[in-house]
């Protein structure tokens, strides 16, 4: 049985908290958490160090609220979805009628990688809807850029406010619509120079070999190997499902390798591509789901004159 504002709701009850002061954050979050443990519901906090400390200090000793390590949870969107789904599944299997979570994306996600975190915020409306989850995503309006707050309004069905209200977000857009929009990321500065390698219609094996040719030893070997997997899958997918020609371009900088794979098609039809595994992989969805977990940033660029581009970054994308 569900309690609080989510009582009677089926599936995921997804809210954002836009707070302008620490007091506003605590006014929303502390009652939410204490009501959860009071109702016997598994109740979690996945905040950053500073805000997590604030909340911890505001809770009574031995409150029963569990603190997750926010930074590692939010390393990559697809991995976050996977680990949260595992957590939620375990809680439901153990008999939970509702699970409560307060989470917060690290501020680094508001920069060059915001596009895939915006996709995350939208996709989880679907990805967590199998579970009786009530979560609040906290955004500090003092440090969150306006364009990010605009996307927060479009990806969260409702807002929780310090006065205890739960207000529908008028800008909320269904994920099946939102995720099909072009949400390209800004160009990586490396892309202002010609690529080190450009291949037209490479085989996946040729694409893999090309990644090794631009590796200058700046990245850990495992990061390069993971990028090799990602490039291989992305090229395989483009050759199989895209429209030729397929072009692979590679750039290398002091702290990262950037790859783009372009074809002249419209891109994957699955709005959740990369964020959720697609069945048995027959549509290529499993390969892109792996790709999303093998890179530090993946951005989709749809609808331009060049067709569809997937950009992959190993190393530091920020």
């Amino acid at each position, binding site marked *: 049985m569900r309690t609080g504002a989510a009582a009677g709701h089926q599936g995921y009850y997804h809210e954002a908290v836009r707070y302008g002061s620490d007091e506003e954050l605590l006014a929303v979050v502390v009652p939410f958490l204490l009501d959860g443990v009071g109702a016997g519901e598994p109740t979690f906090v996945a905040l950053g160090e500073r805000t997590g400390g604030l909340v911890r200090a505001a809770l009574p000793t031995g409150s029963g609220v569990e603190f997750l390590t926010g930074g590692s949870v939010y390393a990559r969107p697809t991995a976050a979805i996977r680990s949260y789904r595992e957590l939620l599944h375990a809680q439901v299997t153990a008999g939970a009628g509702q699970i409560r979570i307060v989470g917060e994306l690290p501020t680094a996600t508001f920069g060059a990688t915001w596009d895939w975190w915006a996709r995350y915020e939208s996709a989880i409306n679907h990805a967590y809807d199998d579970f009786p989850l009530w979560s609040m995503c906290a955004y500090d309006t003092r440090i969150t850029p306006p364009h990010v707050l605009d996307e927060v309004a479009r990806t969260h069905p409702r807002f929780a406010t310090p006065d205890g209200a739960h207000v529908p977000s008028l800008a909320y857009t269904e994920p099946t619509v939102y995720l099909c929009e072009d949400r390209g990321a800004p160009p990586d500065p490396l892309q202002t120079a010609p690529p080190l390698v450009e291949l*037209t219609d490479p085989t996946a094996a*040729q694409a893999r070999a090309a990644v090794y040719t631009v590796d200058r030893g700046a990245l850990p070997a495992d990061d390069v190997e993971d990028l090799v997997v990602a490039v291989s899958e992305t090229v395989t997918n483009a050759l199989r499902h895209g429209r030729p020609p397929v072009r692979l371009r590679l750039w290398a900088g002091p702290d990262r390798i950037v790859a783009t794979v372009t074809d002249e098609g419209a891109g994957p039809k699955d709005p959740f591509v990369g964020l959720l595994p697609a069945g048995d992989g027959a549509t290529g969805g499993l390969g892109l789901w792996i790709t999303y977990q093998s890179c530090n940033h993946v951005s989709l660029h749809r609808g331009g004159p060049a067709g569809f581009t997937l950009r992959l970054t190993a190393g530091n994308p920020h």
Partner: protein
Amino acid sequence: MSGPVVLDCRDGAPGVTSEMGASTPYGHVCWVHDDPAPFHHAAQAFLTAGLAAGERLWYVAAGPAEPVVARLSAVPALRDALARGTAEVVSVGDTYRSDAVVDGPTQVRAYADATEAALADGFRGLRVVAEATPLVRTPAQLDAFARYEHLVDRYMRARPFSAMCGYDRREIGSRAAAELACLHPETNAPEASFQLYACDSQGDRAGLAGELDLTAEDLFTTALERADLRPVDGRLVVQAPGLRFIDHRALLRLHDYGRRRNASVVLRSPHATASRLAGLLDLPGLTVEVTG
């Protein structure tokens, strides 16, 4: 910084090449050719190496023996070996039942008998070049012969028997060439991006080398079926020191293969990515051990 390297791969110009390994751990080579001359050259070198190692030599010719004898006799050492009976050229029909579907176990026994006879006669082993094209002309022949290739590969792990199997691509086509070549530890055939080979004579351990991606998925599935690995204590082990790439599809195939044989599968790979992929796929019964 230099300008970009721009390559158009549509004509296959910068293709990935598959090279013969430098070492011949036990000598089971698949040589696929469009032009017989390089095959003849490679066969002569293969036999000459066997001669130096003190082995008995057989050349199983697809056609009449006489032209092969004449060709081999151009190499003085082989000419002398033919003269004293150390080397022998036989027609394929004398060694295999050429118009029938090969019976793998029977054929392996025949070579085992010949190997033991060679040892009894004081040789260090038996080395064979086989022009096997006539033996794989129909789908049924191909399937049986490919299965036999892995069976005899197991025998080679236990006894001093080695072979170079020659196939004419112009007659059997690239797909059949790939199906045969991938079941040899060594090949010159670029069609085979990977090699699945025996690691022992029992059949619960296989070796895996090369690259496995979507383009190899069907071939890998077929090769695994034909290798027909036999679990011991509910376990199959795939040793892959020469594995350069493996994707999630191949891991799923390995997992499924073990499941249908009621066996767990251990893949020993030098690549940590294989382990990470297996972790993402959450495949109980498939373990990836990173060998470093």
